[in-house]
């Protein structure tokens, strides 16, 4: 019995030593591996949709195919309790949005001239818009790409657009059956989701029109069938579409010739010009 307790004591001592060594290793790894320093150069933050966690890889592949060499970070915002919970609860969480805003702020402060693009799918777009609204004054991202946004088409973007340097793109398609079946949008508002009709200026005015010059709705068209986007909700994240349609817009430093902002369309309607 005495010999047995001695063995146990020795085992406990050796275990304590191992645990201590492991903790030290972890701290060293964290310090070296960079939970401290934010990435420099071009960064893309990507947010998946509600209950759909496999689009990041396709988007990443598409960007790489188009020649993107920067950092790609998938921001996990889901509670992993299913799509309904993500859509109705997690997407509206101020805490999650603050976490994303904190990340963006950290990267921007670390590299004031670096390119930061934020992309999201479906309910992830609600988190993005909320995070942009929470960013401190003077912190801006370069481009925002909202794939099939499940936020209301009348969502007021003016506050979020203050933190966008260049353009906010939103893909939309009338063939999106998932968005067509939504009762309430991920931002908690009712009405047509932006992913079906595109964003609209809710209250036209000088300020809103100036802000919405940065908003470009990418409407689905049959030509996109060649890039594997048939207008479906998640098909928009196909790597071919990303490489051909999205990447040229966000990777170039100049405005894309085909872009027509929401303000342009509104002005044309007011002058009786058409669409």
């Amino acid at each position: 019995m005495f010999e047995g307790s001695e063995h146990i004591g020795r085992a406990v001592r050796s275990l304590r030593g191992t645990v201590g060594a492991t903790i030290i290793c972890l701290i060293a790894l964290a310090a070296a591996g960079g939970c401290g320093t934010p990435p420099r150069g071009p960064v893309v933050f990507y947010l998946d949709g509600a209950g759909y966690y496999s689009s990041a890889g396709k988007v990443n592949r598409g960007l790489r195919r188009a020649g993107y060499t920067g950092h790609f970070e998938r921001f996990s915002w889901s509670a992993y309790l299913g799509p309904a919970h993500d859509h109705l609860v997690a997407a509206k969480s101020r805490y999650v949005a603050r976490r994303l805003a904190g990340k963006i702020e950290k990267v921007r402060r670390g590299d004031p001239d670096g390119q930061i693009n934020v992309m999201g799918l479906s309910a992830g777009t609600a988190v993005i818009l909320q995070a942009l609204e929470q960013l401190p004054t003077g912190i801006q991202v370069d481009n925002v790409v909202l794939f099939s946004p499940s936020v209301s088409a009348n969502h007021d973007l003016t506050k979020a657009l203050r933190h966008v340097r260049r353009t906010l793109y939103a893909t939309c398609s009338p063939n999106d059956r998932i968005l067509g079946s939504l009762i309430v949008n991920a931002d908690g508002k009712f009405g047509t989701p932006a992913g079906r009709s595109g964003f609209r200026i809710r209250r036209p005015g000088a300020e809103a029109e100036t802000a919405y010059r940065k908003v470009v709705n990418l409407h689905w068209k049959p030509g996109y069938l060649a890039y594997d986007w048939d207008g479906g909700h998640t098909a928009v994240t196909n790597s071919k579409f990303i490489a051909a349609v999205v990447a040229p817009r966000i990777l170039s430093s100049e405005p894309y010739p085909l872009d027509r902002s929401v303000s342009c369309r509104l002005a044309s309607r007011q002058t009786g010009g058409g669409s």
Partner: protein
Amino acid sequence: MSTPRHLIRRGSVRLPCLWHRRLRRRRLAGDPTAGTAVPQVASVLLGRWREMFAFACVLCVIVGCGPGKAYRTGRRAEKRGAAHNAYDAYCRAGRKHPGSSAVASGIKRSGPAAAAFWEDEANAATVEGRHADAWRMWMRVLDIQPEHSIAPGAIRRIERQYPTAIADARAGWLRRGAPSLALANPRGAKPSPDVGVILAARPTESSRVDAVYWEAPLGVAAESTGSESETLVVSGPESVAASDADLGDSMADVAGTDGRRVPGITDEVTTARPEGRSTSVDTVAATQTEDADRAEEGRRKVGEFLVIRTLSKRDHRYPRRARIIDGIAARLKDTDSDLDADIYLYAGDRRIKKIRELPVGQSQTFRGRSGKKYRLTILNVHHKTRTVRIGIKPA
């Protein structure tokens, strides 16, 4: 104990589900009520799967589960070697059948060739100094191939070097989007039967067909002044598809920037020559003269109207009621499949005239508030959308 063979209907599918097993058990136990309602119906339906399959096939053939007429048009154009027309047709098919893999592969196949076609045309237009056309063509290239490596640079270069030359084209683009690019016509373009034809606005027999009307948007529409007359384009739907990329954009947007004469289209009319560039010079010259005469005739005839308005019950781009002239408003009551229209005329809120079943090409007179007499003519009726185009001239 095994299931007696006579209890299993011949040709039926043995379902591994619970209800089927229970049913068999009850039948074996001699329950006379077993196998009623749903299980029986399902069993019968499944038992006749061959008949049902044949019925589904027949249904598919009759109703058509294929990508449709536009797709077939695209296939024909592709076989002809007209990739840009094929692309347009496939796009039109794609709008109706976005899930069709045949259409998708058609677009994939014809896209690069169509882009190459427009690229060639853009280069030719640049050489000939038609910078607005060149700009539109490069935009089409980019529209077809968004990842095109040269097009964005070419567009920016034209925008920098010839801002005044492309001002109208650019304004049209900003106003109407992709449909405005359809004004870019290829060299020596002669509208094929698939693509459509350019016609004068005068109501003719050909305008009675159930065609798609490209016309000036309302509000800025069609008031020809002085010698400047309007050229209207009546076209088949083929050339629409590629251009109307924006879902909200309409075919109506394709015509003139401000509803007046469209230089690009008129130029096309006057210079149009048959396809195939090996045509002899004399033939080309003769055709050009003929076309020029026809265009001139068209313009003269269009110019006789003071106002041209489009009214519609179903096409929400157009109002149902609109002011026409001299304080008089016209309200479309209805159209008929015989291509006639019922129109009411109002002076303020007071109805002054009912025009009943007025066919295309016929006219009726009315007096304006000033007492002056005018003649209202039905120019076109598009019954499917309950749309009518009317022209007003002094009586």
